[in-house]
């Protein structure tokens, strides 16, 4: 759990950097996730207190958005587009092969903690699908060989 003084200090820095914004909660949560790899439950009271919100309100925001994770992801995050333009180019087939190759389903992480597989609905690469994103890097016209990108 992230409850050490270090983490509390880091959260305080993030709050300090963003609190002046109009509607600062999303930028704060993005910064927390960038710093810790996820948004730990343990930091919510500190954020709530600083923004004069209830812990439930902050929890509600965190859980509304697909991007924010409550637990750390695998070492790699592989996102495959599931939207229509990629479907038209065989995205469902690619996704099935990737799931089989990794032995996991959507939103799961391989037992060795190597890779988390997530669906994404559109990367704006609709004329060169199927599209994928590996640790933030974009890949067009991908096939099952995309698993090699997350092999190590």
């Amino acid at each position, binding site marked *: 759990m992230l409850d050490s003084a270090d983490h509390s200090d880091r959260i305080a820095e993030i709050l300090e950097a963003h609190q002046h*914004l*109009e*509607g*600062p*909660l*999303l*930028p704060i*949560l*993005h910064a927390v996730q960038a710093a810790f790899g996820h948004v730990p439950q343990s930091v919510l009271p500190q954020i709530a207190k600083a*923004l004069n919100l209830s812990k439930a309100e902050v929890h*509600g*925001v965190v859980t*509304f*958005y*697909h*991007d*924010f994770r409550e637990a750390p992801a695998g070492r790699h995050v592989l996102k495959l587009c599931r*939207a*229509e*333009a*990629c*479907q*038209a*180019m065989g995205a469902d087939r690619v996704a099935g092969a990737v799931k089989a190759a990794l032995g996991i389903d959507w939103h799961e992480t391989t037992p060795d903690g190597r890779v988390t597989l997530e669906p*994404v*609905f*559109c*990367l*704006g*690469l*609709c*004329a*060169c*699908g199927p*599209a994928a*994103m590996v640790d*933030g890097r*974009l*890949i*067009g*016209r991908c096939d099952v060989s995309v698993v090699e990108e997350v092999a190590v």
Partner: protein
Amino acid sequence: MKVYVPLDSAAVALGADAVATAILTEAARRGVEVEVIRNGSRGMVWLEPLVEVLTEAGRMGIGPMTVADVPALFGSAARHPKALGLVDELPWMRGQTRLTFARVGVVDPLSLDDYRAHGGLAGLDRAKAMSKAEIVAEVTASGLRGRGGAGFPTGIKWKTVSEAPGDRKYIVCNADEGDSATFADRMLMEGDPFTLIEGMAIAGLACGATKGFVYIRSEYPVAIRVMEAAVVIARSAGILGPQFDMEIRVGAGAYVCGEETSLLNSLEGKRGIVRAKPPLPALEGFMGKPTVVNNVISLASIPVILAKGAAFYQNFGHGKSRGTIPLQIAGNVARGGLYECAFGLTLGEIVDGIAGGTATGRPVKAVQVGGPLGAYHPRKDFNTPFGYEDFAGQGGLIGHAGLTVFDDSADMLAQARFAMEFCAIESCGKCTPCRIGAVRGTETIDRIARGDADAIPLLTDLCNTMKSGSLCALGGFTPYPVMSALTHFPDDFAPAREAAE
């Protein structure tokens, strides 16, 4: 030697970064001085990475480039095995009317000098000499309608905000381009960010707003980076400042935040739940203040309207759809990408002509127009001209002008099911027809797939409920893809039923 290598996401996804690095490495090895400019994309995605070399005759296009093709660049560009000809002379470019996208792919996206040299800031300069009412009147006269999909006249929206009482007003740019088959916002932000900034600054003048936000989806890392850099440059050049300043905000993966009231809640740091209207955001928007919420393309079309006049822009188009529209041609197509032209081309001219049919070479079965909430059109709709009213008349919509082409291997029952599944995943949960309807819709389509014919009228009834009872377009328009699939492709809903009988 001056070389252009796109920084556009599509080019990068197809290897542009590696090509750019290889060009620099090869140049160093040969001792050749080379200037690599990372431009936006020209929109010919099937040719990406499309590298351009500046020659005496003009910019020679070479693509699709791989690292292995790099050494040959250092000979005569025109004789490169992948040379395509001068980019401006290619049929895809010559057929277009590029008003909003005039500079995309042409300029260095983060060079303000380049922007000025290509006509940038002329619109803002003209607007500064006009009254608020005059700017609003110019935009109204241009006939510009919301390019996000709703098609509401931009000038009317601005007039409401401009005349609304308020100590503080906002311009919010909706860059939460979540519809599959759409990437015009992304390409514009990556390839010509100052156009959007100029459009927002003009909106600020017209409405008396002092603050602007661009809400960009997190799935667009390149667009976020370019826009953030452009805002810093524009601020240091005095284009942005105390009179009107801007901030880039990043979404968090919720499709529904492309709906304007949901976007405003998200921007305020809340769950992206849809708000009931009224009150209109124009009167009570961000933080309860009068707010313009416009799509990227709407705002990015403002500079050319101000620079060249409303009549110039209004002169293009068809019926009540005035000006140009950046078509985004996607899915299973031979030639996919962005093609800006006046409204009025028929669906067939776009799909069979410009796009050249499918990538697989098989017959086109269906074209989904307007993203995941748009209808699936069969070939019999191919004579429909591209315009707001024309597609509404065919039981569809043009949305944000994305077209997804499917070949004859597509299973339309599966596409209908996906539409319901997507709605269930992305529903904000506020209204019942969307929250519950989408889940029941998925189940009902599964019943049809299992051969239960009684489920078809049930699905039709459910779609009517969702259409008339949902609070926003997510639940309200999901019936478009579902019902169009059922209506136009009944065979895909029938075999299982017949088998069961």
